[in-house]
């Protein structure tokens, strides 16, 4: 997918929750058709960057420019979801239109849209199931489906493969790639450098500020990873794809000299 017009521009943004800045002078640009990954350690500001981008939090400094009328879908981390909450898959998807329609019941067109999205994501016939009764992969797709019901131009996903097994990660990556190939702009955060980030066309390395941005081959380098994670990481070449590994020969703290 080639990049098109400007959708979202986070320009020199600084933001904090009251105990020092989480983001410092961060600039990120998202164009139509992008498939962008944001990587960085815990607390580096990845989730906050998504929230700033969609306007859920207001920057302390800098500006966020969105294309007029831009529709944004948001997919939270699934491990923040309350799976005991009494809600069915269809009810969950209808929440996405809470800004537009307040009534409990879905309109005919809404129900049609819900069924269409469920079918597209391989969830047909599961609308009346409780969200807890689904497999891990289906649960992840329900929240992607909820974002798609609003017919977004760009979808922002927070750690879509956090805590999932290899099969679900693989399926999620392919689902997002298919959606991107169909014209949807995708921005996601991830901790998974090898299973997810290395497969994306473009990455931003974040640690409160933007350390580097570019293709995986350009940014998954030892010096960039050292500045991003503050830890020594090596990078191997696997058929042209970078594979991030722990530094070979670096002893674990507290284990040196044992044995």
């Amino acid at each position, binding site marked *: 997918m080639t990049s098109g017009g400007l959708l979202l521009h986070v320009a020199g943004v600084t933001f904090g*929750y009251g105990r020092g800045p*989480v983001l410092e002078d961060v600039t990120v640009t998202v164009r139509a058709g992008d498939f962008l990954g944001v990587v960085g350690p*815990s*607390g*580096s*500001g*990845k*989730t*906050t960057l998504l*929230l700033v981008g*969609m*306007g*859920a939090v207001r920057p302390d400094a800098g500006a966020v420019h969105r294309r007029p009328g831009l529709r944004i879908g*948001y997919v*939270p*981390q*699934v*491990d*923040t*979801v*309350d*799976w*005991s*909450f*009494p*809600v*069915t898959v269809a*009810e*969950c998807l*209808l*929440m*996405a*239109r*809470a*800004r537009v*329609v*307040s*009534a*409990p019941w879905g309109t005919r067109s809404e129900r049609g849209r819900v069924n269409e999205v469920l079918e597209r994501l391989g969830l047909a016939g599961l609308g009346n199931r*409780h969200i*807890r*009764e689904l497999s891990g992969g289906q649960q992840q797709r329900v929240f992607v489906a909820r974002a798609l019901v*609003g017919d977004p131009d760009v979808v922002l996903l927070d750690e879509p493969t956090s805590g999932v097994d290899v099969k679900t990660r693989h399926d999620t990556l392919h689902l997002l790639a298919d959606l991107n190939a169909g014209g949807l702009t995708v921005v996601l955060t991830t901790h998974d450098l090898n299973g997810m980030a290395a497969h994306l066309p473009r990455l931003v390395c974040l640690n409160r500020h933007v350390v580097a941005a570019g293709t995986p081959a350009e940014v998954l380098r030892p010096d960039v990873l050292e500045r991003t994670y503050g830890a020594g990481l090596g990078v191997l070449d696997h058929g042209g794809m970078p594979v991030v590994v722990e530094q070979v020969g670096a002893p674990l703290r507290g284990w040196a000299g044992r044995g």
Partner: protein
Amino acid sequence: MGGARLSDALLAPLQYGFVRNGLVAATLAGALCGLVGTFVVLRGMSYVGHGLSHAIFGGFAASSLAGVNVLAGAGAWGVASALAINAVARRRVVGVDAAIGVVTTASFALGVVLFAASGRAGPNFEAALFGSILGVTGRDVAAVAAVLAVSTALLLAGYRPLLFTTFDPDVAEASGVRTRLVDGLLMGTLAVAILVAMRVMGVTLVAAALVTPPATARMITDSFNRMLLLACLLGAGSGAAGMLASYHLDVQSGPVIVLVSTGLFVVTYAATAPSRTLRRPPACADRSQRVARP
């Protein structure tokens, strides 16, 4: 014949106007508490309901002694307390439970002191604490009916934003739902519901009417719509049965209503135990363990 005599004896008190008032008020208050309590339970705010009922007692005492309309005075006090708790909760600086504990118990203590100092800690004081069938007037019935009607209308008008904010507050806000307004409206409705239900249940027991029927309904169904409806029906049924029983047993209405409601909870808990153990445990059932923004 025996059954007819029993039902005649049970329903005989309805010939008295004050019993009819009490019965209608308890039924409507039970439904109202079930409606509002569903959100209280699902948001993990049971302690807020408990604390708020105690906070309102301070306003109740102050307005009764000052000769101000009790509904207006205690209502304003309750809404102010609810908004204060909500504001503290949003700041995430002090623990919400600690803030509620400090504010609401102080308000309750103030009410006790005001009643004691004025020498009016008699039957009115007991009725405020535990509810009384004798204390329910036609105006109280009208007040409960009006609050129930307005609450139902608000729920229908803001159903999806309410549900979204209850299920997933951070994402709801990120998706453009005005969660601050939704939270404020819910807290205001909760305060007013407690205020009007207080005459029937008493401040110390109204929290149970908010929590027990929705908790029972949750064990019966996995659907939000059905839980809401069931909680209202269970609350209304407990209110009606408890109020009638309180007349026959000649004890305060609040404790009897709570005991009826608790009985239904225990029966449901026992009846649904086998299916509950077959369910997969939730990944993150405790709302307090939700991941905060980094």
